[in-house]
């Protein structure tokens, strides 16, 4: 999804979809080779993919929330708080009227958090970080109070809601079953693809569909409609936008409220997770912040943030399901990736990048060779480490909206 406008003019530009497809294909091949050579078949199993989808979903919603707010020029570090509000709202509506009400409840409560953030930052020009932190603290406090008030009489526990009915899961049949049979044959590549795809097509809930659908929808709305152009212009240069008649304050409000609603939806996804009975104090566990990191990883773009949250979800899923040995296997995959990149860059005559990739590959392989399993302490933070690495390498090319976090007053451009 990343458009590289500064790319070499001598080369014809490769269409975006071709690049996306080839990146995904390369990833699958690397995973397949790794699984085959290291014997860590969990890397591409259906169960791992399902776990990854479950784990990435709240992060994806939070990341999309961050996207909408930050594209409108408002830093939203309060995603975590809006997500907490969402978990509570989802549980409160959900235990009374079922899962769809839970989705709605999460959205409404999250949007309220977003509205508060908009009032503070857009109308009163409060520092965005300060307001965001305050909303996170407020979210924790308010939900604690409300759940003591409303949940404790029913659940006998102030930190937990009564049981919320979850969505029934479904699979895309008959594709899912045939993929399962292919996977069980353990044929190189074919079974890996079947495992990865099978996990995506079975054990689904409507929320998974909504989550994946919101990525292209966000892209289309923000980049392909007049509304989206105007909203993004508020994040790039609100004074210029205003001079062209854009109602900057309104657009910022809309962006931040939608952001809160998406974060709240993430909270609902967490409450309706198959392993969950409902609301539980502290269940977000920083996923709002991770969503923000995934968005930055994705260069403030929907496709990129999907990749970022998939990375978090996948590595976390592998680590939780199969432990340090499987993460150890991923090191092998990282080596292949580094060598592949080195080859590509040599072909493009980018010697320095190629050298760095080759050295990195050698180092990772050295680590792989010298240890048998990644210590659990490292394995648990593997997604964070990978993100740090990627950001360190790619930060030169990241480009946040130009006017993000800046104060804006109506009419100040006169």
């Amino acid at each position, binding site marked *: 999804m990343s458009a590289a406008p500064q790319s070499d003019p001598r080369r*014809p530009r490769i269409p975006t979809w071709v690049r996306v497809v080839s990146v995904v294909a390369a990833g699958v091949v690397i995973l397949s080779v790794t699984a*085959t050579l290291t*014997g860590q*078949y*969990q890397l591409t*199993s*259906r*169960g791992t993919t399902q*776990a990854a989808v*479950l*784990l990435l979903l709240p992060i994806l919603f939070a990341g999309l929330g961050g996207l909408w707010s930050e594209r409108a020029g408002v830093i939203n570090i309060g995603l975590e708080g809006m997500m907490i509000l969402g978990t509570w709202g989802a549980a409160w509506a959900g235990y009374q009227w079922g899962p769809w009400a839970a989705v709605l409840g999460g959205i409404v409560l999250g949007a309220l958090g977003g509205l508060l953030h908009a009032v503070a930052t857009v109308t009163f020009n409060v520092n965005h970080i300060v307001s965001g932190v305050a909303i996170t603290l407020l979210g*924790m406090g308010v939900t604690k109070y409300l759940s003591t008030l409303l949940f*404790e009489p029913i*659940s*006998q*526990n*102030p*930190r*937990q809601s*009564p*049981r919320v009915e979850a969505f029934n899961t479904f699979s895309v049949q008959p594709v899912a079953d045939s993929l399962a049979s292919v*996977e*069980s*044959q*353990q*044929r*190189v*590549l*074919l*079974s890996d693809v079947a*495992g990865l795809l099978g996990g995506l097509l079975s054990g689904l809930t409507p929320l998974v569909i909504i989550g994946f659908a919101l990525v292209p929808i966000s892209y289309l709305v923000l980049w392909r409609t007049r509304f989206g152009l105007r909203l993004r212009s508020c994040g790039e240069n609100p004074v210029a936008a205003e001079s062209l008649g854009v109602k900057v304050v309104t657009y910022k409000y809309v962006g931040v409220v939608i952001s809160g609603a998406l974060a709240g939806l993430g909270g609902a996804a*967490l409450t309706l*997770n*198959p*392993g*969950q*009975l409902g609301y*539980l*104090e*502290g*269940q977000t*566990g*920083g996923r709002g912040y991770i969503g923000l990191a995934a968005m930055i990883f994705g260069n403030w773009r929907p496709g990129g943030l999907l990749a970022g949250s998939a990375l978090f979800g996948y590595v976390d*899923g592998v680590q*939780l*399901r*199969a*432990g340090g040995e499987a993460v150890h296997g991923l090191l092998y995959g990282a080596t292949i990736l580094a060598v592949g990149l080195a080859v590509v860059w040599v072909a493009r005559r980018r010697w320095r990048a190629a050298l760095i990739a080759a050295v990195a590959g050698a180092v990772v392989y050295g680590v792989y060779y010298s240890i048998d399993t990644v210590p*659990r*302490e490292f394995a*648990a*933070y593997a997604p964070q480490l990978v993100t740090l690495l990627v950001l360190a390498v790619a930060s030169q090319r990241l480009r946040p909206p130009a006017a993000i976090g800046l104060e804006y007053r109506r009419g100040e451009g006169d």
Partner: protein
Amino acid sequence: MRIRRGFVLAAAVLTSALVVVGCARDTGTTQPAGGGGTNAGACARNSAPPAPAGGAASAAPAQPNADASGLKVGVAFDIGGRGDASFNDAAGAGLDRAISQLGLAKANTKELTAGPNESEDAAATRLRQLVSDGYNPIIAVGFKYATALKTVATESPNTKFAIVDDSSVDLPNVTPLVFAEEQGSFLVGVAAALKTQTCKIGFVGGVEQPLIQKFQAGYVQGAKAVAPNIQVDVDYLTPAGDFTGFSDPAKGQVVATGQLDSGADVIYHAAGASGQGVFQAVKAAGKSAIGVDSDQYNIPGLADVKDVIITSMLKRVDVAVFDYLNAAAAGNLSTLPKTFDLKVDGVGYATSGGKVDDIAAQLDAYKAAIISGAIKVGTAPTS
């Protein structure tokens, strides 16, 4: 030109892919989800140890109830406080029992509760407040109070303190109330090994720290005592220092599903509220689970998953708190056991639901062997 090169490349990739796809892996069809890596046929089980001679297995005699009407008791709860359906509630129950059985006046008790992620300072302030209000003895619930308690207990040498789940504060006026979790875990490990059909069981720990490793060590030892070649899948949700592992059911569910997919059919969790996720995963797969700390079969919030809970490892914080208050009222703390273990009913296993009734004889035999000292249970994982 470029396009033709692209076609050549694509053709080459496709051909090689087709060649590769043709190869099956050596492991054949045994690998993926379901039944992988089990050894059901070879699950030899040892018989239970003989009952020790002389009836040494009987529990130690309880101390007579003392009169606590003169005591002013302060209790500092851990995060969550009363109503957490876990160990704060258990400590509260011990206090309630002291009120009803020892003549302790309710007006003479004070309860304070910790907030999440608070500083050491806030904990110390809470304890100091109880001291300055004249409460004596004061019970700190949870190892999080250890550092704060050390400071405050040094400042007020004339006040008696007790701390649940920690033995690191070595002061004359501090009584540690610690439990032999490994002994209770040993017994549920025995139950898991007797109940498994696949000879593979699982353990899900919340946070990988020494306290939870005690649960793991006892469980694994107990399972291996019954079935020496049993496989035990051990997983933790978060590493030491990251306490979200106790409140993240989503992760609990993923980890438990992973263990179930690899063939485990009984899973023991020591993961606090994350255990909900474990129970849900186990219920979805129709296998068995073992609860922790309190009798989780009877917890209202878990009512819809209780049919998979075959037993729970009980940690009787209520017994410890009651015994401590009783001893404090009698003015003789030396009668308290160093560790609340099986002998004094400080730990045990739950029988609610009747799912372990058929193996009660074996469980009691192991219990007797631990009490008599014939079996020593380790507190640290061996591997």
